[in-house]
């Protein structure tokens, strides 16, 4: 598993609410593309014109934002379908951190499985950050997970909250399955006891 400690990168503002995972990666791409190829189709409908060329109006096609590893976006980002390919597409494209007022819950969980840091900040802060990123020739932000702080171009710091368990998962790049299997004895014991308590769950 990849780790996340600190990221210094251009930040791109894409301030719209309720960006759904169908928009991040359309179904036919999720279906047919290999995980490693998914990023070619990230935001496909926004990113390309009908003739397949880059849409010059889409912010992530414009320098310096085409190199952004930080995305600043609206509330409920990643809502809708559970498809983890939405994270794979963004990660493959180079996005390592997404800052938003809130996230779709399944998408939020999926980020931690893939080394992508979702940062939740209050809506007014996100709006300020988006304005700073949008109106700056070199909008380089510093996201430090160790200190839980986003430092922006004017030097202002924005502290963020994150569950300690999830923070450690990213800092150490933990493999959930490996960690859980350390508790295999407890898992098996729970099942044995449950088979007596709720035998109807266990099909013979």
């Amino acid at each position: 598993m990849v780790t996340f400690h600190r990221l210094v990168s251009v930040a791109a503002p894409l301030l719209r609410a309720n960006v759904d995972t169908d928009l991040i990666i359309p179904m036919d791409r999720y279906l047919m593309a290999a995980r490693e190829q998914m990023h070619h189709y990230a935001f496909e409908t926004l990113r390309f014109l009908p003739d397949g060329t880059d849409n010059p109006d889409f912010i992530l096609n414009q320098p310096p934002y085409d190199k952004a590893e930080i995305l600043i976006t609206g509330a409920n980002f990643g809502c809708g379908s559970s498809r983890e390919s939405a994270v794979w597409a963004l990660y493959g494209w180079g996005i390592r951190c997404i800052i938003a007022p809130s996230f779709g819950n399944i998408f939020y969980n999926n980020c931690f499985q893939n080394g992508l840091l979702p940062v939740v900040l209050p809506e007014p802060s996100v709006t300020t950050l988006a304005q700073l990123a949008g109106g700056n020739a070199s909008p380089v932000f510093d996201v430090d997970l160790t200190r839980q702080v986003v430092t922006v171009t004017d030097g202002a710091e924005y502290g963020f909250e994150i569950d300690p368990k999830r923070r450690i998962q990213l800092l150490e790049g933990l493999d959930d399955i490996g960690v859980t299997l350390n508790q295999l004895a407890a898992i098996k014991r729970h099942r044995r006891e449950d088979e007596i308590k709720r035998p109807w769950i266990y099909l013979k």
Partner: protein
Amino acid sequence: MDDYTFFDKVWDQHVVADLGDGFSLLHVDRNFIHDLSGTRALQNLAGQGRRVLHPDLTFACPDHTVSTAIDAPHTGDRYEICVDPLRRLAADQGIKFFEIGKHGFGIIHVIGPELGLTLPGGLIVCGDSHTSTHGGLGALAWGIGASEVAHVLATGTVIQQRPKRLRLNFHGALQTGVTAKDLILHVIGREGVAAGDGYAVEYAGPTIRALSIEERMTLCNLSIELGAKIGMVAPDEKTFDYVSGREYAPKAALWDAAVAFWRTLESDDQASFDLELQVDAGRVRPQITWGTSPEHVIAIDETIPDPAEQSSTERKQAYAAALEYVGLTPGASMQGLSVDQVFIGSCTNSRLSDLRAAAQIVRGRKVADHVTAWVAPGSFDVKKAAESEGLHDIFEAAGLHWRNPGCSLCVGSNGETVAAGQRCISTSNRNFVGRQGKGSRTHLASPIMAAAAAVCGQITDVRQLMEP
């Protein structure tokens, strides 16, 4: 235990270990896997050389990529990428696989309850956001990502942070022509698509008690469109009647023990919720979405909202962009809007009661000449049951296409899509940009509203076609 919510009781029964910071390691009773995330997760696991810990609690069925065409050969790229490896890896891991076109096959959120695999108080996960559907039977169920599916396969458990609790209390009787679909769309419109974020929703109150189990499933299905991963209705006599006698449901003495246990699950009188909201169900009218988010919804006799009148700049922009995409203008009525396609199906609305209600509307009428209308029953067994009571004859006589089971036009992952610029009234769950196919325009509604649009050729208030 006299101040516990229904949700907390079920949660606590499944805790294997407290992981700190509100996280628990929870035992999974049913792991439903399908041909998208399920296949990918099984492939990941095989790549790591890991085995499935509880194959007896894991059930596989391909539903997303399977053609719903009658006499489809079920071959080609999609099958080779998604279905064939699921079948092969399930066999290799000792997992029950429900074969296409056989008893038990269908949309995974339809077959779970139908086969008696979904039980009250059970903990169910699936790599699909509409897993909340199973909450209609009083199961604690939510959608997870492919990595989490792999975790469940390998460990028999899921890691989850305990959500807050939201109770939605519904009062009043539904008016004629108003369904569970309208009820939940109304709530999504009123509260917004992010309102339930971080909550497990309990649907409660006299209106909910009066709903059938299939209606409760429709309600719970759309919890994710309210932003909540989990939606549930505490089990009652209706639930027990529904589950009783089903193939995998407990029998005889085990049944009696199960029901006695399930009766203890309802929220205690003193239970407290982090948030409680009231809904006057008696005032809800048939709903129709106008935009590109499930919260873009109005009652059929309302007009399309004006972006200029929205509170924030972001909302003004979102409304304007949505209207441009669907090709509609503010202030207009949805009634009379011509449709090209009609889809009755999906895990939201493809059960027998949905099909009966839709058939009632189209009986003796004809689908408009310019409309293509599909009915895709939720499962093989729904299809057989519908045919045994002649519903397919009613649909076909009216000019609707009677299809095979599968997710189909809800999400287009089987190649069945709505063409760019075409307008589809759909009983499914999402009207996102491109959801039913690139450039497709979706209007979500109930099965009877979809049926009414099919025969009128335009979006219609279904109440005009119903007996008073």
